[in-house]
């Protein structure tokens, strides 16, 4: 006699899902996201803002105490908190399901500390996911004590103290100035700031900023804060050495190479827009940035993007784009013309910035055969250098298969080997299996039945 076991009983999912319905959901609480949220809420829409960090502010306005922020940041924080928008932080968006027909866009988020999965159903989405630093591999870059330039800024703002550390800052771009100033003010000894760009290029860029004297004044103030530290152009770090943490770096200016002892190295070569979530929901991306129209609308209906994710351009541009996106997501028929003019001017500066501080060709050859290029899986350059694509590298060597999902190695190898990034699938960040299971309610029970006799 055969009896069939009906194994279709579903387990009670231990963690429930908390559903939220809203008009506009904004992902990313930096300047662009804050501006979009405030604007959309002021237009009378229900708005939910989601941010991965411990507080809003993104990178540039990261803070523990409000008093540490400048006036503009505090104005926007006030404007955000005065608005009726709901702000949630400490959760990572792991999936976005585009709308089907007239249905909502669904955003799935996981709280770092555990708890229910947050599922937000929204009519419109604003992606303000910002940008991350581009790290380029060099021998010894995985040693503890080698951190990002923005990374140093972030760590200090979240409470780290690098007092009494001997610091080498080696990278590119204006971000090195405030970071050097912050570290000096906090008691670190900045022994060298190495800018890989050519002195002539940076000088031309600085001259172009004469139209924006307040920017030059700010830069000068920063430089004063660490005036005793050498600031060298055409210079970069070729190697970090040390046993369990960094103890020295080799610094090159082309032909000359010298050793500088240090116990903290801040390094980063530009910013890379965080286009993973936009790509997951289907947005068109060009040259590594989300493509948007004059309303900051992406190629996906109902989805807008603003800030660094549409192209690295700084705080002022992010705020303008955020306002336009927020208004558009709230239903504005056309963008505010003053904002449009301001955006055009600021984009010009952004383009000039990118040209000036583009990483130089020598930085492609710093990694040696045995240099780890995928930090999550400890894959060395030799394992991937002769392969043709990021996908091939991933499957043959596991490079890009780890926790950072190719964010660090992918951006590095895009510069070093010219590879395009691979496909994006959920989860957009590592997520608990329960999050993936709870996100979508099953409508049909799946039966697995087993006859008990015969084969």
């Amino acid at each position: 006699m055969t009896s069939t076991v009906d194994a279709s009983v579903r387990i009670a999912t231990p963690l429930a899902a908390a559903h939220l319905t809203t008009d506009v959901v904004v992902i990313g609480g930096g300047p662009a996201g804050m501006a979009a949220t405030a604007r959309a809420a002021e237009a009378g829409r229900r708005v939910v803002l989601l941010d991965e960090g411990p507080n809003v502010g993104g990178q540039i306005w990261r803070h523990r105490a409000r008093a540490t922020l400048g006036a503009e940041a505090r104005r926007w924080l006030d404007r955000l908190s005065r608005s009726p928008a709901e702000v949630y932080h400490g959760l990572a968006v792991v999936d976005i399901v585009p709308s089907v027909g007239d249905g909502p866009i669904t955003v799935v988020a996981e709280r770092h500390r555990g708890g229910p999965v947050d599922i937000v159903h929204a009519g419109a989405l604003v992606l303000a996911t910002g940008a991350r630093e581009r790290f380029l591999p060099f021998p010894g870059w995985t040693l503890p004590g080698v951190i990002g330039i923005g990374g140093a800024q972030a760590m200090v703002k979240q409470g780290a103290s690098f007092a009494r550390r001997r610091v080498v800052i080696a990278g590119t771009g204006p971000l090195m100035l405030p970071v050097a100033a912050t570290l000096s003010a906090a008691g670190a000894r900045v022994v060298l700031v190495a800018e890989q760009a050519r002195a002539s290029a940076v000088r031309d860029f600085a001259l172009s900023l004469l139209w924006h004297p307040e920017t030059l004044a700010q830069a000068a103030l920063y430089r004063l804060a660490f005036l005793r530290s050498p600031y060298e152009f055409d210079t970069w770090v070729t190697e970090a050495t040390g046993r369990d943490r960094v103890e020295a770096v080799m610094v090159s200016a082309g032909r000359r190479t010298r050793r500088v002892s240090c116990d903290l190295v801040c390094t980063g070569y530009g910013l890379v827009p965080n286009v993973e979530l936009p790509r997951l929901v289907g947005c068109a991306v060009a040259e590594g940035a989300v493509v948007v129209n004059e309303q900051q609308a992406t190629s996906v209906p109902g989805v807008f993007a603003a800030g660094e994710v549409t192209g690295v351009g700084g705080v002022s541009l992010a705020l303008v784009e955020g306002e336009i996106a927020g208004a558009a997501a709230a239903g504005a028929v056309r963008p505010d013309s003053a904002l449009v003019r301001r955006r055009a001017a600021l984009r010009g500066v952004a383009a000039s910035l990118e040209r000036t501080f583009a990483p130089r060709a020598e930085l492609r050859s710093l990694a040696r055969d045995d240099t780890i290029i995928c930090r999550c899986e400890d894959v060395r350059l030799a394992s991937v250098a002769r392969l043709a694509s990021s996908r091939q590298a991933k499957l043959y060597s596991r490079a890009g298969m780890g926790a950072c999902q190719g964010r660090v190695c992918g951006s590095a190898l895009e510069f070093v080997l010219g590879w395009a990034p691979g496909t994006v699938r959920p989860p957009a960040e590592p997520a608990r299996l329960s999050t993936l299971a709870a996100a979508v309610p099953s409508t049909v029970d799946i039966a697995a039945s087993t006859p008990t006799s015969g084969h």
Partner: protein
Amino acid sequence: MTRPRPDAIVVGAGIVGAACAAALAGEGLRVLVLEAEVAALGTTAAGMGHLVVMDDSPDQLALTKYSTSLWAAQSDTLRTASELEWCGTIWVAEDDAQMDAVRAKRQLYAEHGIESVVLDERELARREPHLRPGLAGGLHVPGDGVVYPPTAALAMLDLARERGAEVREGTRVEEIIPHGVRFAGTTVHADVVVNAAGAAAAGLTPGLPVIPRKGHLVITERHPGFCRHQIVELGYLTSAHVLTGESVAFNVQPRGTGQVLVGSSRELVGWDPSINRQVLARMIERACRFMPALASLTAVRTWTGFRPATPDKLPLIGRWPDTPGLWIAAGHEGLGITTSLGTAALLADLVVGRDCAIDAGPYAPDRGLSVVAE
């Protein structure tokens, strides 16, 4: 420049094509492997990489048993490159009725010389503490294992090259003709042409009863020691057996890295590679039903792949009479990694005209299967 005519052309450099190329080259044939894209990046790269005996039918049992013994006999080089680990399999029974099936399975395996041990509830829990309490028991098959398929296939291609084979990637065969193939405006002739094009094999051989059967997988971060064996629910056989609609079945596998690979799902949706969030969610739910602690593990990646499915769950190994010179090595469903070596050995025997180690009749491509199974 004219090159010498190959004795055999293998179409497809997945693990089955790679194994066949190595085997035929080992027989002294001059082998040319033509791969449309990049070696081992198709179904081979998407699977779980299990080496497992499976008894959906006696013929499946015979082939998987033969194949796992060939894996055990492989060189150190191949086993190291494949990251082969003999972690064994535990089939899980939820209740007494399934325990009867477990005991019958043990009996069947014993008759075929496959070692297995019946586990009661306590023994099951001892071996796999994260399985939920209240399960009836299971069957431990220690002779099963796990490999990392892409590097296994690449190692087989290297072996083929050492034996004189040539491998051309980025070369898409447009048509298989009597004793030859056409690609990029060229025709190359060979006495033997092997269609090892996996889930796409029917595109080159019209009438071949192979269709794509989509599966989802998800892999976690490193949680070393979470599970020690490959663990499968008995219902997996049913899920694999019934070639209709959509099903999920619990199947987890510990990787050598300490990551946990979670499956499985089956759907017939053509070639859509996108993640179906509902199927993924049901698959994970089902897995958590058996191992509740899975729920709090961190998932890093999800992906899909296409199993080459045939109506009777057996692969096609042997001549394709409609086209002179054409041989088939395709249709392995979820057992391509396991049976790659058995397939290659049988194919080599058939091509050179030697008696096969096991009866190859059940896998004959022209055994009268209908094209589209429903």
